[in-house]
């Protein structure tokens, strides 16, 4: 734990969230609350619903039942609530999803200019600040295809930060990377965590979880199975499924 988030107000709360894909029950009555400054690592086997869960928070997926509140804004499916929430929530994807026809700088300035109405000068200043922070400012005029995977993911982080979000969601940000590039992205995320960003990370990087997380949440079959501080989570997992999962994942490290 880097800093105590215990006394901070709640930023995100999910109450009894249910989601189906047709007959498949993807999220089963998920309740979760995240305080300002908290760093949460979500892990679990593939298909357990962890990505779906964070994608519901910024309305990339709709939910069938339950309630999601971000910064006091209830996500009710209206355009207004979706807009309000997306302004506060940044997201980083497994496959980066940078805009390939735009330079790194343009990738970063688009949303501030279009969504917040920031002038080009100010948007570029903002973009340079965050590109500097992810240590990639020297590539600002290049196109995404000219960068390595690790560099692209760092640009994607900077792009999200340019909207100055209150929360960052990470959806397996290092899973598509070659092993030698994982560290540069994790270091960037650790830096972000140190600066007090509220983060929810879907990742299997257990080293990262140990170092940064306030809580580790283990999901399986659409349910939250176990949730604990990293020390407790790794040393003495309670549930059998958590033990099996940890056994499998730590065997590779």
């Amino acid at each position, binding site marked *: 734990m880097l800093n105590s988030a215990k006394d901070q107000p709640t930023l995100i709360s999910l109450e009894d969230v249910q989601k189906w894909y047709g007959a498949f029950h993807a999220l089963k009555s998920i309740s979760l609350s995240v305080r300002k400054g908290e760093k949460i690592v979500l892990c679990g086997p593939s298909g357990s619903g962890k990505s779906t869960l964070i994608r519901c928070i*910024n*309305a*990339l997926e709709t939910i069938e039942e339950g309630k999601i509140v971000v910064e006091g804004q209830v996500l009710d499916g209206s355009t207004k609530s979706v*807009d309000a929430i*997306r*302004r506060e*929530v*940044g*997201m980083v*994807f497994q*496959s980066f*999803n*940078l*805009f*390939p*026809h735009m330079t790194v700088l343009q990738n970063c300035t*688009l*949303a501030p200019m*279009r*969504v917040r109405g920031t002038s080009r000068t100010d948007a570029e200043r903002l973009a340079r600040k965050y590109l500097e922070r992810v240590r990639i400012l020297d590539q600002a005029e290049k196109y995404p295809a000219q960068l390595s995977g690790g560099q692209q993911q760092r640009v*994607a982080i900077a*792009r*999200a930060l340019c*909207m100055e979000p209150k929360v960052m969601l990470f959806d397996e940000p290092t899973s598509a990377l070659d092993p030698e590039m994982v560290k540069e992205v994790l270091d960037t995320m650790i830096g972000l965590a140190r600066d007090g960003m509220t983060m929810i990370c879907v990742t299997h990087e257990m080293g990262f979880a140990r170092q940064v997380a306030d809580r580790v949440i283990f999901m399986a079959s659409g349910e939250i199975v176990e949730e604990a501080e990293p020390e407790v989570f790794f040393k003495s997992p309670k549930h059998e499924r958590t033990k099996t999962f940890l056994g499998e994942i730590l065997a590779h490290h």
Partner: protein
Amino acid sequence: MGPIGENEFFFLMQGLKWTVLLAIVGFIGGGIFGILIALLRTSKKKVARTITAGYIGVFQGTPLLMQLFVVYYGVALLGVEVNAGIAVAIAFTLHASAFLGEIWRGSIEAVPKGQTEAANALGLHYVSRMKDVILPQALKISLPATIGFLVQLIKGTSLAAIVGFIELTRAGQIISNQTYRPLLVFGIVAAIYFIICWPLSHAGSGLEKRMAKAAR
């Protein structure tokens, strides 16, 4: 048999001018409406999708010549006095909008879904998402097919000769009737079409190969 001299050649060039103009008007007009069709065809609204699917179906399922006739005589039926040029321009615009709309629908759908998701996650609205993110990528994907259609459109303008619009083919007919040398005249006319269309086709397939290579 009469000679084919400077005057005849000049007349053909006048015809060529109208062929090119008609193709340009059809392509630009069809392009503007075609984007609209493509956007409606990919919208979330089922009504919009169904109507545009019907529109595209009608134009893809009937011969261009029939479309020309229907517009040519249909406009007259409305009691509006228009010359052949305007009628064929309208017909070609409608025709091109349906085909380009369908080509671009496919290209919009070929842009990876992650692009829309990233744009959504950043809070971009529909207009910006389309204009800044999706359409530039879709148009690039569509370029070979779009150029291919342009070539079809240029050749298709020859059908306008049938409703009396004096473009290149009609000009050729007139010269041929005056000189009684149809083979020579239509040979020249064909060569002119070829000189315009072949480089375009070539550029289109070159582009396609380059893009296929880049995608590998």
